[in-house]
């Protein structure tokens, strides 16, 4: 039962990872990577590691994603303001 859940989560995770690298939009890949972290944190709970799950969820999928988004926004605004090309 748990194994099946893990396998399903795993498949989602792998596809998210592939999607993260295949998608053109960086914002999508950031979200996908956040999703991976979230799934990982779920697996951590299954693995009886609540501390780690909390940390992964808050830092890995939460804060990291936010940092990514902010950084992307900052880089974008720079490129746009300097008249650079869009990515």
């Amino acid at each position: 039962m748990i194994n099946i859940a893990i396998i399903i989560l795993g498949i989602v995770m792998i596809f998210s990872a592939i999607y993260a690298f295949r998608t053109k939009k960086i914002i999508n890949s950031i979200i996908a990577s956040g999703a991976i972290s979230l799934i990982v944190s779920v697996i951590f709970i299954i693995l009886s590691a609540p501390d780690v799950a909390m940390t992964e969820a808050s830092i890995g999928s939460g804060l990291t994603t936010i940092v990514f988004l902010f950084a992307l926004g900052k880089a974008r605004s720079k490129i746009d303001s300097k008249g650079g090309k869009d990515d």
Partner: protein
Amino acid sequence: MILTTVLGFILIILGIWGMLTQKNLFKMVIGFSILDSGIHLVIVSLGYIKDKTAPIIDSDILANNASSQVVDPIPSALVLTAIVIGLAVTALMLTYIIQLVNTHNFDSKNMKDPLSITSYEELKW
């Protein structure tokens, strides 16, 4: 749990794959963070013991036989550290990207993409 270890390694390989194939700096960093997640998964899964609880001694688990009831707490402790470090590195990488874009020469003649790793090859040999 072997399954999660396998998953962890798959994430590691995927992360390396991303770092090796993606030209975009952001995606390389994403590759790195996926690699990191994979490693964390591997670490925690190595400490897992089937049918045991989290290493928190509730009142119902007596202190004297607690050691036969819980999963290995050490990997969890290590992963905590690793996650925070991962965040720090990721944040710093992103800051670097911002600064690289900042110092990019946005000349109309300069066709280099400021977000591509191939634009930063001035130093070599």
